[in-house]
């Protein structure tokens, strides 16, 4: 399955399933979590996860938001400023809102949640495993920035860290460029060709 998915995480996370059927979502990951400072929601589970984090440093367990039914776009109008709190770079889009993974309804009243859209232009080949790595790093960052003001600056710090993480994954060979991407400009550096060097370069002839 292609790896575009929309991810949401919350203080207590339950991961949203990817929607297989939807065409426009096939390659998108959407993951939303709730930003802890805004609402105290499911407090005890959060404490649990903190303990787990101390035990297992490697990956932060995901705590995705429960999928919601009948989400409607709210607070998107001009009377609310016509804009939203977000950090958008090419591979990472973070919104302080709940975005429905199926219908893409954008509920901006739920500012206690952060939604991550991973690689909407589909520049990399994603698998569930690599997606989850990014999501758990996202979760870890959100836990780290707990208590920070919910501003664009904080979201950009988180988003930039995730971008650096993705680039790190690319350099380590965990993810690859998607050669079928619409825009193939190798925005994180030219791909390296893996030769099998036997100590010697082959002669040109």
């Amino acid at each position: 399955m292609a790896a575009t998915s929309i991810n949401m995480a919350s203080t207590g996370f339950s991961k949203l399933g990817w929607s297989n059927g939807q065409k426009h979502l096939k390659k998108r990951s959407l993951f939303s979590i709730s930003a802890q400072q805004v609402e105290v929601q499911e407090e005890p589970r959060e404490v649990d996860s903190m303990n787990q984090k101390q035990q297992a440093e490697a990956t932060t367990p995901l705590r995705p938001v429960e999928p919601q039914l009948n989400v409607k776009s709210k607070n998107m109008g001009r009377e609310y400023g016509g804009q939203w709190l977000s950090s958008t770079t090419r591979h990472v889009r973070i919104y302080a809102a709940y975005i429905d993974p199926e219908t893409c309804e954008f509920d901006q009243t739920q500012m206690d949640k952060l939604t991550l859209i991973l690689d909407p232009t589909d520049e990399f080949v994603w698998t569930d495993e690599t997606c989850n790595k990014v999501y758990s790093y996202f979760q870890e960052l959100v836990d780290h920035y707990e208590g920070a003001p919910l501003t664009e600056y904080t979201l950009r710090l988180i988003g930039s860290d995730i971008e650096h993480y993705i680039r790190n994954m690319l350099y380590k060979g965990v993810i690859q460029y998607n050669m079928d991407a619409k825009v193939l400009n190798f925005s994180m550096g030219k791909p390296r060709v893996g030769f099998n060097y036997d100590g010697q370069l082959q002669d040109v002839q």
Partner: protein
Amino acid sequence: MQGRLSVWLVKYGIIHRSLGFDYQGIETLQIKPEDWHSIAVILYVYGYNYLRSQCAYDVAPGGLLASVYHLTRIEYGVDQPEEVCIKVFASRRNPKIPSVFWVWKSVDFQERESYDMLGISYHNHPRLKRILMPESWIGWPLRKDYIAPNFYEIQDAH
């Protein structure tokens, strides 16, 4: 070596310090932040009716912040107008300088930019807020001790 304005200010017992002349021979004076507003009014009354530019800079690492004002006296029939450069220094910890917005209105955006870049807070400025950086930005980008955040798009814009 004192300039004309310095001599005039001494005559009226106004506290200042002469910093010499710049490369164009324009007199440069240092004025204390607490005196600056009243001296600005005095200079306006003296005839400096045009604020040519206002800027600010960080003098040295860990040192003072400076706010610089270039004043010109515009009159009819003068081809070499009188000019003066005023420097006001403020401490890095608590940089407060009175705003001269109510004397020369053109200083409005310039002081906002100085506030945005160096964090000098201008007293009595009507709307002192960031002008170049986003309003949620943290830190003062042109200070010498500023560390730029490792934002992705700054170096890796696609």
